[in-house]
Each structure stands twice: as C-alpha cells, then as structure tokens.
C-alpha cells in the first residue's frame, strides 16, 4: 500500500512537470495556431540557467529567478524573431523552423556548458523526507514539485476563467478570428502567452534539475511526451492538458513500477524485465492510440 502511494506520488510529480510544459504548448497552439518544437529547448534553457546560477552561487533560491528569466527571455526572443513570422505559414514551415531552433539551442548549450551534465544539490530546506503516513516516507523536494505544479494549475485556472486576459485567451483558443475582430492588440497577447508558456517550461526544467541530469537533449525527450499529453487532452485545452498530464504521469510510473513484476510471475526474470521495460516505455503511446480510437480530437476538445 505504501509502495503504491509512493508510486502514485511519483506519477503525480511526473504529471505536474508534464503539465507545466503542456499548458504552454497547448495554449500556444490553441491561440496562435503554431506548433512549437522549440518548447523543449526552453525547458532545457531554464534548467541550465537556473542550475548554473544555483551551482555557482550555492543558492537554490537564486536559481529560480535565473531559470525563469532565461526561459521567459528566450521565449520572447523566439516569438519576436522567428515565430511571429510563422503565424500565417503552414505547419510544415513551423515544424522546420522550430526544428532548426532545436539544433541551434542544443549546439549553443553544448558550446557553452560542454557535454558533461550539470548537477545541483537539493536545497537544505527541502532535502529530507517527510512521513506522510505511518511508514510512508516521501522526499520533501518531490512533494514541493507537486505543490508548485498544483499551485500553477490553480493559478492558470483563475487567470483563464476570472480575468479579462483569460477571457481573450479562452476566446482565442476556440475562435482565433473573433479575438482579432475584437480589436485587441493581438501581437501583445501572443507575445504574452508565448512568454507565459516559456516561463512555465523554464520552471519545469529548473525543478527537474535536481532529479534528472541537466543535459542536452533533455528537452526533446520530454517534448514528445508532452505532445502525447496535448493530443490526449485535446489541442488548445488547458483543462485537458491538466488531466492528461496526471493520467500520463501516473500510467507511465505505474507501468514501469509494476509491469516487470507482473510479467515475472509468468516468465523468466531477465526476459520479463526486458519485455516489461519495452512495454512500459510504449505505454503512454498505446494510451494515446486508445484515446485516438475513441475520441480522435482528444478528451477535452472544443466543439469545433
């Protein structure tokens, strides 16, 4: 039971990380109609900048503004210099241009920081474990990630449902033309949404730093998983992204944790491990396949 709860929390931690990325990605697509492959690069840049500052100053806290600022500024620069010219282009051009950005960012990071992964220690205040239930110890830092993720989700909910900007965002993600017709400074809105998405990606990257190795290529790996989230949740839907992130995080974690054990009861150890690893790494994609069979537009797609 405690093991199960622990895995559930692990799944949630992965889930909120995915959500931080997926929220931005799905909004950027929903509102601007742009597919942005470089979103993963911004995650990586947030991780590198934050981790580097944290490692040199020795303060985990100082890393936060560094990571967020680097990510947001990169996001604004990307929007201003590249993505802005792609709004009216077809998806192929968007894919190729942002693919080019990935190559540029990956190589630039390699040139600046080298090929060795960066590591940062946990902040002292968050390094221990807490006993959530009798016998269930869970790392405080991972709990903090979950808390931050849920807070961001709540904040986004309020922003989207309770503010004027949110109203525009909602309108924009279902009917792009309408927002244009409203006479809003659409450019500013676009830049703001892009910057917000980048900020969240940077936050996710920095928070993942102490758990994963900060290295080149980290962005693309999670980006593709994020795509799966967006497809399952329904393109343009932040709510869909939230539920799909948690669903995916928990499914992925559970499969990796339990499948080899289950298989070992019916076949030999090493083979079971290999097969289990294979199937569980495919798990989220199979989940996507099932969702596509039932609801091709995703679980929370709009009525369009």
């Amino acid at each position, binding site marked *: 039971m405690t093991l199960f709860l622990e895995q559930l929390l692990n799944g949630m931690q992965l889930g909120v990380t995915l959500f931080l990325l997926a929220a931005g990605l799905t909004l950027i697509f929903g509102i601007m109609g742009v597919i942005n492959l470089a979103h993963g690069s911004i995650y990586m840049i947030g991780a590198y900048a934050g981790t580097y500052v944290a490692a040199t100053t020795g303060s985990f806290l100082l890393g936060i503004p560094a990571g967020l600022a680097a990510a947001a500024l990169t996001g604004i620069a990307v929007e201003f210099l590249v993505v802005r010219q792609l709004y009216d282009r077809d*998806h*192929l051009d968007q894919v*190729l241009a942002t*693919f080019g950005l990935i190559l540029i960012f990956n190589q630039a990071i390699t040139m600046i920081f080298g090929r060795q992964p960066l590591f940062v220690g946990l902040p002292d205040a968050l390094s221990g474990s807490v006993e959530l239930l009798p016998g269930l110890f869970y790392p405080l830092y991972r709990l903090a990630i979950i808390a931050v993720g849920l807070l961001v989700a709540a904040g986004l909910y309020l922003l989207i449902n309770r503010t004027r900007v949110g109203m525009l965002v909602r309108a924009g993600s279902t009917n792009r033309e309408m927002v244009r017709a409203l006479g809003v400074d659409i450019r500013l809105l676009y830049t703001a949404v892009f910057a917000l998405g980048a900020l969240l990606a940077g936050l996710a990257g920095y928070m993942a730093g102490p758990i994963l190795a900060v290295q080149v290529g980290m962005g693309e790996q999670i980006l593709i998983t994020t795509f799966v989230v967006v497809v399952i949740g329904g*393109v343009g839907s932040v709510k869909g992204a939230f539920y799909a992130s948690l669903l995916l995080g928990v499914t992925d974690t559970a499969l990796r944790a339990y499948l080899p054990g289950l298989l070992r009861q019916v076949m030999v150890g090493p083979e079971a491990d290999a097969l289990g690893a294979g199937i569980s790494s495919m798990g989220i994609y199979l989940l996507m396949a099932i969702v596509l069979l039932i609801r091709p537009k995703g679980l929370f797609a709009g009525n369009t």
Partner: protein
Amino acid sequence: MRTPITTYLSLAVLLVLLVALPTLADLANYPAFTSVATRVLIYGIAAASLNFVLGFGGMVSFGHAAFFGIGGYVVGILYQHYSLGEPLFGVFPGSNQLLVTVPLAVLVSGAMAALIGALSLRTGGVQFIMITLAFAQMLFFLFVSLKTYGGDDGLIIRRANELGGLNLRDRPTMYYLCLTIAVSFLFLLWRIVNSRFGNVLIGLRQSERRMAALGLSAYRYKLAAFVISGMGCGLAGALMANFMRYVSPDMMHWTKSGELMVMVILGGVGTLFGPFIGAGAFIMLESLLAAWTENWQLGLGFILLLLVLYTNGGLQALFSRLFRRDA
C-alpha cells in the same frame, strides 16, 4: 502540355553521368565519392517517399524515420536469425537473400504504416504531426529495449545480403544496385503522381473540402498514400542496412525524421527530383559543415531557419529566383 525534348535530353545526360559516376570517382582519385553517392541515393528514396505524402498529399508526417528503421531492422533481424540458425518465433527461418529480405522489409514497413496511419489520420493538422512523431518515438523506445536485437547498440550485419553472384560489399556494385532501385522507384512514383490516384492525392492537398464536396472519402486515399510512403521508406531502410551492414535505433530517432523533412524542403516540396537533390544537398552540407567545425549542427540550424523564413519552396525555388528567366 507536351514534355519538351530538352527535358528528355537532360534526363538522359543525367543518367549517363550517374552511370559513369563510379568510374569518374576513380579517375578523380576519390573513390569514396561512390559511397557518398550511394548514401544520397538511399536517403533520396526515403525523402521521396516522405515527399509523396508531405509534398503531394499535404500530410506533414514527423515520424517517417520509423519506417526507415523498420526496413533496416527487418534486414538485420532476418540476418541475425540466419546467422545463428534460430528461426524467428521458432517458425520463420532467417534469411540473407536480398530478394527475400528487401521485399519483406517493404511489406513489414507498409503494414506498420497502415497501423500508424490508420490511427494518425483520424485527425489532421497539428495533431497529425504530433501523433506521427509520438508513434515513431514509441518504436524507437521499443527497439532500444529489445536486448535480443542489440538494444541501444543495434545489430551488426556481418555480411551484406546475397543477390545472385554480386558482391554487395563492393562499392560500385552496391552503388549500381541502389541506382537501379532508385531510378525504378522514381519511375513508379512518377506514374502514381500522374495517375488518377495521384490526381486525387494532389487535389486533397489543395482543398480537402472541395474534394469532399465532389464525393470523395478522403480517409482511405490518404491511408493508401501513407502506406505507399511507408513502404518506400522501408525500402530505403533495408538498403541502408545492407550498405552500412549495421542497424540501430538511431535510424528511427526523431531527429532522423526531421532530417528527412529537411531533405524534402531543401529540394523543394512536391517535386519528383527535389528529394534527391535535397538528400544530396543535405549530405554535402553535413559533411562540409562537419569538416569545418564540430558545431556543425549550429550552422545547419541557422541555414534551415533562414531557408524557411526567407525562401519559399526550397533550393529549387531559390535557384529559380536567383536565375530567373523571363516568365
């Protein structure tokens, strides 16, 4: 609308040059060029296959490396079972006969394309891009975890497949094999593009709505095109496995899908020869940049970015704009 005689002439000249290429390379004291040309031909087949759905059909697939990789792995896996003398699944014997392995590679990648296409084509637009990418990545992870077939490290194919008395390790022989297949493949594509099926496919790219209003059920035509395209990539993958005598999950990594796309756009989307030009340009660019700096990907990224932002329609369009004749 008659094809001008000059077109046939230039095609004939091109073919003569291609046939003479290994000899010319030897004369120029640069025999390795034959290998480079072989690589260009193989990637050209893959890029032309991708272009069939992307350029002619308007379906932006970001997962075509999957079929390239599957084609390669069919050759690799059959070879492993052949060399170990263990039948696959205890039933099918392995093989090292090119006339067995390559058609099988084409069929298996076609079947996989049917599966992935049937699911991905239930949506369109940006979802299609993400889904094809995701499924390709799924296969990548699958092959990474298949330790029986080398996992991360891939499979070494100690000896290339056999085809009659030909020695496929011999550079010119392999080159001529690939040239023959590439030319036949291109001829086949040319026929399909101009056929009734091609007419429908190109119509779908221009306006799906119009085609529906004319009474077309788009799904099955798109799926058929996707399968044909997957088979072409599988063919290229099988050739690549024989050429490199090695397969690995890297063949289906998402960056490979991206590279195939770059080749297509370099050469010009929706043209028959474009992908081969693009494959050539990409491989040249890669080796030039790599020789110049180890950070060649940075250069490639910038070139790609500039190409997309400031030209429209790839190198062909760029050239025709630079050397514009009176239109």
